[in-house]
């Protein structure tokens, strides 16, 4: 299939394809991180994850409109503020949802699936009523559009680089919080043995609430970042939910490193296959491979040894 192209052409395409794979990897990590915390650490099957992401996207859209109307001179930097607001908004909603709904269901993890599915439908309809059924277009500052020319034939999309940088930043922050901070130790203690953690004086209810809020907040940031590459509409969250669960489950539910490894292997497989065959077939083969590996290794790629 490559006979008719020059070596130079092929070389630059392979470099760009490598970048495409890395971008896909960052997107997967970013959307899965929040869920890895909620599903991985707390065992809550959060079907409304996509809707928390879209809340972040809508917050970004509103911030963009606000800046355009009132502070046009600062428009080029609005995105950073928008991401913070997205984190706060989704986190706050997450905290509310935990208090109203999730905390009653910790002993019935399968019921969280149904409850959060219902929640996702309610949120979708709420977005539709508030923002309208049509998709909204989020306007980006000029510097975030277009691509960087590395050589004459190699171009790297700026928004892809942005997502990659953001992913590295957030992953490091989450890793630090979970594994180095005092609060992270409490979270892991509650995950490993809730009763014992309570007995040594950890306020487990509070830890739960903040953990859930953190996961939702990260989903909000992801949604905010994805306004650069995807659509923002009431049901756009549904586009991400399947891939997100795929990454988290394949990685091994309770492991952050597993999530990253799984995002890497899935994205690289998919992006390589996509280049040699059509998009739909690539997806089919990727899913088949994941199913096959999960049959051999049901606990996922990485599994923590936990005393049950």
């Amino acid at each position, binding site marked *: 299939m490559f006979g008719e*192209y020059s070596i130079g*052409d*092929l070389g630059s*395409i392979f470099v*760009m*394809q490598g*970048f*495409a794979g890395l*971008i*896909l990897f960052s*997107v997967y990590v970013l959307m899965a991180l929040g869920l890895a915390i909620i599903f991985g650490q707390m065992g809550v099957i959060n079907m409304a994850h996509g809707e928390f992401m879209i809340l972040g996207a809508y917050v970004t859209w509103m911030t963009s409109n606000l800046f355009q109307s009132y502070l046009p001179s600062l428009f080029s930097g609005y995105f950073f503020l928008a991401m913070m607001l997205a984190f706060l908004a989704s986190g706050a909603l997450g905290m509310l949802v935990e208090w109203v709904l999730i905390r009653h269901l910790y002993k019935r993890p399968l019921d969280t699936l149904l409850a959060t599915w219902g929640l996702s439908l309610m949120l979708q*309809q709420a977005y*539709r009523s508030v923002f*309208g*059924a*049509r*998709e*909204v*277009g*989020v*306007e980006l500052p000029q510097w975030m*559009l*277009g*691509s960087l*020319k590395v050589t004459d034939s190699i*171009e790297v*999309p*700026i*928004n*892809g680089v942005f997502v990659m940088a953001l992913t590295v930043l957030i992953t490091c922050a989450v890793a630090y919080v979970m594994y180095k901070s005092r609060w992270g130790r409490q979270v892991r203690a509650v995950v490993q043995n809730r009763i014992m953690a309570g007995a040594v004086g950890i306020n487990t209810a509070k830890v739960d609430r903040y953990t859930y809020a953190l996961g939702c907040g990260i989903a909000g940031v992801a949604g905010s970042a*994805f306004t*650069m*590459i*995807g*659509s*923002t*509409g*009431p*049901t*756009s969250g*549904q*586009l*991400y939910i399947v891939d997100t669960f795929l990454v988290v489950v394949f990685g091994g539910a309770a492991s952050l490193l597993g999530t990253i490894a799984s995002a890497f292997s899935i994205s690289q497989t998919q*992006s390589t296959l*996509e*280049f040699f065959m*059509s*998009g*739909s077939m*690539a*997806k089919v083969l990727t899913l088949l491979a994941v199913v096959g590996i999960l049959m051999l290794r049901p606990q996922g790629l990485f599994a923590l040894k936990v005393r049950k």
Partner: protein
Amino acid sequence: MSDEPNKGLQSPLRRKLLMGAAALPFVSILPRPSFGAGPATATVNTTGLAVTDTEVTVGILHSATGTMAISETGSIQAEKLAIEQINAAGGVLGRKIKFIQEDGASDWPTFAEKAKKLLVNDKVAAIMGCWTSASRKAVLPVVEQYNGMLYYPTFYEGLEQSKNVIYTGQEATQQILAGLNWIAKEKGAKSFFFIGSDYIWPRTSNKIARKHVENVLKGKVVGEEYYALGSTQFNSVINKIKLTKPDVIFTDVVGGSNVAFYKQLKAAGVDLSKQALLTISVTEDEIDGIGGENIAGAYACMKYFQSLDNANNKAFVAAFKKMWGEKTVIGDVTQAAYLGPWLWKLTVEKAGSFDVDKIAAASPGIEFKGAPEAYVRIHENHHLWSKTRVGKAKLDGQFELIFETSDLVEPDPFPKGYQ
């Protein structure tokens, strides 16, 4: 037929009342002209439809909730506007049109069930409805079994014809062929790259387009790719496009994927003012979500653009914005949905009856001179004769008309040599 389609909307209070009432599933419009002067009900309604001396009931069946609400909202708005205008102009055979709105909820079995409810329980005289091919295919056996009349607004893949359906949108050959001819001539295009969402409409459309490119234009298709509905990552295919350097990218990607595709195309440095792109799936509605800056310069092949410069369209756009707000945009399908109630009214008046059999028989040859897309006529095969137009997307989200066929294009749902 009214030459002033917006005359029904004069007092702001009346508009408020209407908008409030529109939220109810069952709406009756306040009568202004006096109704009841038409021919006797027994003569115009021999099959027990919901027709009284003063009123006739039709159904509106679209998704107001779920994924498809995004697209179908415009159709619902257009149909309500048309019904209101017809009533303001005296109704149909002296009867006011009442409508019952049902929600298909983006779920195909629900569409079939609601269609049955409209036909069997409500005895509606016609249904304006459906949007996706899947919903139409679900409703088709129902309207055929219970002998209803469906006015279907969306451009679609063809390969269908029914006594009980009037297709007010374009079938595939009407939409595609003239556009391909134009771009081949205008840009000297020889090589094409096809990319679409993975379901029946893009696949059938691309099949027709491929035959046309290879057999008629003597060009080459250098790539044909499909992505699952809802895909959000297009970087790989964009790299393939860069490698194969086609003269034209021909796309029929739909839904949220559309937004992702154009954003990533722009981010990858593909400049649409240099790289020709022809789409058959982006209307003004979609550009709202994609963002004008991401798609400016692309060509779209449709039969209607909001920017069309004719008296009918100006009045239509003004009336539409007055009823639904300044910010609403009107895409190709919204206009086609607007044709439905008008074509039905004209057909009923020609047949002198609400009976479905008589309407089906009287439909061929019906002309609507007040159409925003200008003149349309119903063909024997129940599709519309209409023009094919090519528009160029502008930064503000509107299209600039670049080309239109000089004559109406004949609908050909079963094209020979393209299957």
